[in-house]
């Protein structure tokens, strides 16, 4: 869409990309006179269902391949999706780490208030993946709906430890402390991006995707803790 005298590119992006894509959008606007980038953030599954229901998106950046697959299943992609970032898990603990968590194995302690994502959501699936790879059975006190909910429990001190993405730990700043663990490499989450079919501004959309994949784009992402695709 867009006004007569102003061109707009609408980018639907996973909420975890908020900071990075805001940076990328202003970079893009600086390079393209008279072009505005509209950013719509939300859960990847919400975004997909909105595009499926006629939301006017030009670009879609998903936090996982599963939701991108829903889009391609409906043939709504303008091009083949491309992976542009990866993310791995980290243990998040309150800044003072009350339970003295230092490894993935510590999470199996039944006295610990453990908070994970539910297996149904991507971060939960990933958590299950690393646990299985390490041969552990984790018994969480709560299986949250989203990373934000896990972080909320940790920052408030309600939970002693949780498994979230590296980028989330970084974004949360001083409120949580991240504990790295080697098994995290076993499960890598991939972020794909694509233009959307029927986009009014397919050229600009394509250029935005290229910006994300470009070196400068990748730098913004890695600064925020994302891994390379």
């Amino acid at each position, binding site marked *: 869409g867009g006004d007569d005298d102003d061109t707009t590119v609408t980018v639907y992006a996973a909420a975890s990309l908020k900071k990075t894509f805001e940076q990328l959008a202003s970079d893009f606007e600086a390079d393209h006179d008279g072009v505005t980038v509209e950013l719509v953030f939300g859960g990847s599954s919400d975004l997909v269902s909105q595009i499926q229901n006629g939301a006017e998106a030009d670009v879609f950046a998903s936090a996982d391949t599963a939701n991108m697959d829903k889009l391609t299943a409906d043939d709504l992609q303008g091009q083949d999706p491309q992976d542009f970032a990866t993310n791995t898990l980290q243990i998040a603990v309150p800044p003072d780490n009350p339970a003295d968590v230092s490894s993935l194995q510590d999470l199996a302690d039944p006295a610990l208030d453990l908070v994970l994502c539910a297996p149904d959501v991507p971060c939960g699936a990933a958590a299950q993946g690393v646990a299985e790879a390490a041969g552990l059975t984790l018994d969480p*006190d*709560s299986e949250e*709906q989203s990373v934000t*909910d896990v972080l909320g429990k940790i920052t*408030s001190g309600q939970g002693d430890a949780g498994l979230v993405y590296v980028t989330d730990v970084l974004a949360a700043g001083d409120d949580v402390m991240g504990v790295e663990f080697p098994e995290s490499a076993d499960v890598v989450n991939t972020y794909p991006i694509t233009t959307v079919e029927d986009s009014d501004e397919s050229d600009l959309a394509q250029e935005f995707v290229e910006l994300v994949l470009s070196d400068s784009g990748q730098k913004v992402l890695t600064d925020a803790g994302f891994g390379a695709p």
Partner: protein
Amino acid sequence: MGQTRAVGLPRWVVVPAALGALFVLLPLVAIVAQVDWSNFWGLITSESSRTALWLSLRTSTASTVVCVLIGVPMALVLARTSFPGQGVVRSVVLLPLVLPPVVGGLALLYTFGKRGLIGQSIEVVGTTVAFSTIAVVMAQVFVALPFLVVSLEGALRTGGERYEVVAASLGAGPTTVFLRVTLPLAMPGLVSGAVLAFARSLGEFGATVTFAGSKEGVTRTLPLEIYLQRETDPDAAIALALVLVVVAVLVIGLARQGRSAL
């Protein structure tokens, strides 16, 4: 039998009323139309769905009871007394209505959580409310209480005071007046307030997920289950939502049977 007849309604009100009803009805029809009926039964009778429904019914009932127990006195104090700062108190009581439930959940976490305002004192007593069913009820009470208080306060204000005065002049003390006059006369307001509170508790999601977390059989109520299913199996989510709707219709219907005046 002779029948007292009501004054006719202006004809034109039927038009906006029907539009409004349609506006609410159509989305419900759309949901029903979305349901994948072939798998419907299997979806809604799965172990996790039944657990979630049962938890929802239990917690909603509990929170409705709590709402009545503390909401009736609150409505009474607001409707029948005046004290400095009453306006502020009334606004505060209504706030959970306007607070996005997630923020409400956060607020509860900051209060009753492990490191919350009074969480430590609670922990001294030996229990944590965290990640427990009690937390679910607390979250539901927090969001549902204003409904009960507002409905009942309205009913208390419109009816009754003249009769309370008569009762007092016949020698009835405040408690007698309350139990035998105030409460029976405000019963329609109380019933509709309780139904609203129950309905709101049944649909509660944001505060619960934030404050109580989501564990099957303990804190994962039906709305949380719906939300979770939506990630992987939208059909199941729709089916469960329909279950919620049916339960709500039944409850509202039953409440109306008990009292004609909801």
